[in-house]
């Protein structure tokens, strides 16, 4: 008898300690969502480099009792993801990703056509549109109420730049990291679907047919001076943008200097992918059931799409202004590339232009606004950080 009693008690204890005991309906929903995202990442290849770790992080954090995101308490160490998450929380990972991005980016098209930088500014309009939308949402949907800091974090989705979005959100509204990162990367994967209809609707056939003059060749000296001057200028004007812009330009200086090939290789390959794993998994791990299953997530998804669309429109409309002022030399289609998302948005400009005129090559012209968009959204993040930061 005592043996059977012991067996039953052991079984009961095991069950109470297992995850099943703590599994709630909300956890199950979150696990299903994470599996759905994994499907999108693997089968549809939606930004798999990030969506896959994000979705798996989401799965891990929603398995009760596993405690991967647990803070250290009562003399016990915390979960592994908790420690890795400090790199996001303290704002270390996104600038390191920018280091790698800088090491991979050629700013030549931007140096050759300096005015195209302004398209990278115009396309940031989407950020502020979504920001205002988030602030005004409570007048339409009373149960979704975003604070100023939350609204700023949602707006930055329109920058179409993952690291910038994660950086700003980790500073202003860390509890929204999960949905914002998921929205940002999903819409980035959807850029080829979201942008073309907006681009065609806002331009005439004649404008889309414009062939742009070949870019002038850019000397090595200019390419080396560029990252140094940008760092000094931007950091002096807007110190809060310095972490992102500074690291981006450091990576670029590595590349253009031509003397530290090994550093370029490490920054743009090994280091960047290591950080991507840490960043993706831990950002996904912030998407706990309490944080994610909230009406706010729906608001973020809708506003994020709005941000992308308005950003595209802002770039194209400013492109039309440049088309007029330049006497028809600028093809407005390159404006949509101002929403970062390098190099996807530039490829979309190329594709839409080629549909109209098969002999038109807009890619290099679109790369200018495209890389300017990266600087632009980092600048906007700096502005928002200095207004809403503690």
């Amino acid at each position: 008898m005592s043996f059977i009693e012991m067996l039953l008690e052991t079984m009961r204890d095991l069950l109470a300690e297992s995850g099943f005991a703590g599994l709630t309906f909300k956890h199950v929903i979150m696990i299903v969502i994470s599996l759905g995202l994994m499907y999108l990442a693997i089968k549809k290849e939606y930004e798999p480099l990030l969506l896959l770790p994000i979705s798996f992080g989401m799965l891990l954090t929603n398995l009760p009792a596993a405690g991967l995101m647990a803070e250290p308490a009562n003399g016990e160490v915390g979960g592994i993801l908790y420690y890795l998450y400090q790199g996001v929380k303290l704002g270390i990972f996104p600038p390191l990703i920018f280091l790698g991005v800088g090491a991979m980016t050629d700013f030549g098209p931007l140096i050759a056509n300096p005015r195209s930088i302004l398209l990278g500014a115009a396309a940031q309009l989407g950020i502020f549109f979504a920001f205002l939308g988030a602030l005004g949402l409570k007048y339409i949907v009373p149960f979704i109420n975003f604070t100023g800091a939350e609204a700023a974090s949602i707006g930055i989705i329109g920058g179409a730049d993952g690291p910038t979005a994660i950086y700003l959100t980790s500073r202003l509204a860390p509890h929204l990291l999960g949905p914002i990162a998921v929205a940002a990367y999903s819409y980035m994967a959807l850029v080829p679907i979201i942008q073309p209809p907006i681009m065609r609707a806002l331009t005439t056939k004649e404008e889309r047919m414009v062939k742009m003059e070949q870019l002038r060749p850019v000397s090595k000296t200019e390419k080396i001076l560029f990252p140094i001057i940008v760092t000094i200028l931007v950091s002096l004007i807007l110190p809060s943008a310095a972490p992102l812009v500074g690291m981006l330009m450091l990576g670029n200086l590595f590349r253009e200097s031509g003397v530290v090939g090994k550093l370029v290789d490490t920054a743009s390959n090994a280091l960047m992918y290591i950080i991507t794993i840490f960043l993706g998994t831990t950002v996904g791990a912030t998407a706990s059931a309490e944080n994610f299953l909230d009406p706010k997530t729906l608001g973020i998804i809708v506003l994020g799409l709005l941000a992308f669309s308005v950003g595209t429109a802002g770039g194209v409309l400013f492109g039309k202004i440049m088309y007029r002022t330049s006497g028809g030399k600028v093809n407005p289609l390159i404006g949509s590339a101002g929403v970062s998302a390098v190099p996807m948005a530039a490829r979309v400009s190329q594709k839409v232009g080629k549909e109209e005129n098969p002999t038109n090559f807009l890619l290099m012209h679109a790369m200018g606004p495209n890389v300017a968009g990266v600087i632009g959204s980092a600048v906007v993040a700096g502005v928002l950080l200095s207004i809403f930061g503690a």
Partner: protein
Amino acid sequence: MGDLTHGLMVTVIGMGITFIVLLVLSYVLDLFRILSKGPSSKKADAEEKAEKIKPEPVENISIAEETNSKNDLELVAVITAAIAASLNTTSDQLVVRSFRRIGNRSSQWNNLFY
């Protein structure tokens, strides 16, 4: 509604600063262009003259190629690039309007060894 007015102010200030920063940057880059042209201005002038001597952009080139509706667009792009390269100009100076393949004029002897 107070937060919306605040939001509008943030928007105006934010877009304003973004434009100013990038505008400053674009003017600095203009200096780059002047600096890079400065020492080699003679060479650049010579190049510009050479540009003017060049014949007018070739407007209508009928390359003898058979129209093949399948890969037309890519073919146009490739041919444009090839002509641009052979004429020593750039693809934005050219418009390919039509192309068709001419019959196989090579001698039957050429096919003997295949």
